């Protein structure tokens, strides 16, 4: 379905973003992995290429709009078109609101909210010119409901849900679909590490989730893949929750 389409995923050196890269690559797409971490990004791209995928790495700091604009320009020069952009890059600072270091707040907003907008604007201009394209914003269930100590994470995630509505509504008539996904807790390497180090508790996550398990990276990637596809051609400005029932469950 995505054969030869050009798909950019931010923050895709590892975790959810890398899972999405694999999913689109499997379908014959040309995937552009971007990340601020050049070493990890190159490694992941190399790994996928060795498996036969069409993947390139492009360093990108989403906080700098000049970089996202330059990347879009370069890709269009090289490939002639830009089809899908996934705003996935994120940072996860934890800490009580009253003592949260302000630079952590600023970074969270800069990466997950402003960064998503800068990228959407860069990609969106090209897509509007083409008259087609899809932007997928990765939000979080944390953007809908609050977990203690996640003020820096949840607030920009709530912001991106409205960003999806704003851009989705604004660009719908001009062939650019903007949609979102709100994953619940997913068994990424980062969560795995947290569990091993004792900073995250698997049993709490499992007990809180009606499906009694965490999501897999593949399940989130599949949802993003579907949203980006023409099967979702009438889905606009919507953030789809993929959380095993977490958000719906509201009793104890």
């Amino acid at each position: 379905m995505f054969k030869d389409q050009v798909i950019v995923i931010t923050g895709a050196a590892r975790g959810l973003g890398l899972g999405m890269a694999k999913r689109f690559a499997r379908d014959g797409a040309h995937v552009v992995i971007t990340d601020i971490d050049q070493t990890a990004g190159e490694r992941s791209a190399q790994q996928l290429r060795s498996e036969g995928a069409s993947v390139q790495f492009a360093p990108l700091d989403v906080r700098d709009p000049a970089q996202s604009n330059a990347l879009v320009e370069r890709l269009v020069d090289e490939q002639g078109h830009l089809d899908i952009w996934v705003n996935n890059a994120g940072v996860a600072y934890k800490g009580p609101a009253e003592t949260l270091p302000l630079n952590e707040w600023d970074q969270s907003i800069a990466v997950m909210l402003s960064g998503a907008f800068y990228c959407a604007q860069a990609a969106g201009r090209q897509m509007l010119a083409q008259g087609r394209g899809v932007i997928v914003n990765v939000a979080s269930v944390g953007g809908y409901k609050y977990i203690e100590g996640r003020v820096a994470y949840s607030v920009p995630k709530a912001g991106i849900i409205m960003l999806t509505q704003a851009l989705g509504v604004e660009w719908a008539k001009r062939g650019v679909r903007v949609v979102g996904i709100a994953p619940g807790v997913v068994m990424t390497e980062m969560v795995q590490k947290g569990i091993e180090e004792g900073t995250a508790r698997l049993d709490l996550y499992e007990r809180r989730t009606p499906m009694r398990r965490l999501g897999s990276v593949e399940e989130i990637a599949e949802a993003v893949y579907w949203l980006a596809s023409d099967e979702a051609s009438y889905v606009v400005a919507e953030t789809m929750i993929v959380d095993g029932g977490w958000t719906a469950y509201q009793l104890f």
Partner: protein
Amino acid sequence: MSLEDQIAIITGAGRGIGFTIARKFAQHGAHVVIGELVDERGQEAAEALRAQGYSAQALQLDVTQPASCRAVSEKVMAEYGRIDLLVNNAGLFQLYKSEEMPEESWRLQVDVMLNGVFFMTQAVARTAMIPQKRGVIVNIASIGGMGGWPMRSAYNAAKAGVIVLSEVLATEWAQYHIRVNCVSPGVTRTDMMDSLIKQGAVQLEKYNNRTPLGRVAEPDEIANAVLFLASERASFITGENLRVDGGWVPYANLHALGFPEESSARQEES
């Protein structure tokens, strides 16, 4: 006083949150009409308010019967010539696993809490509020209408219906200067709740812990919200669902207890 001389009908006001709303309205100068399915309960409640020097009366009312809703509306109109406020509070809940929910329980809960709200509202609007081009309706919904609570499929579905019904009526009747709003209480410490706690059927601790404020609501806190929305202070508020839940709904509750298999014993509250 914010409801001086206002004529207010409150359904299901013989006890619990409804009674607290009735007393609050009366304290603020309203003439209170208690609509109660169980007439004796309504009469006793009205008597209790009159004994405190307030203006109150009770009328037997079955909100599931449009004829009963019309009769109550017409009776109040005949006596006062207008109806200023309506609070749709009557309700009940019955706990069942959804796969075991009897048809009659599903129908009863939806009938009282969704159909009943519509019938009573329609009757009061037709009889009084639309002709007088003025009125305020406050529907008691629930935070249950805003999410999934196991074993409460009928209750939560009916309450969700009330929230949207209120939005619809707010948009439809704004032209008649009728405001329609919801209050969605969180878990509230009513007499009924107290008796369930005493029976051991409800563990207060679980509700307290789930709530960011660390406690359940007092009925008076719910009544305060209803009073505010009913008053002129809320003159630009319509179609709003005001949560009074101590933060329950926005809280993701990471430290969940899991999904207790609650007894399928019927528990009811009016």
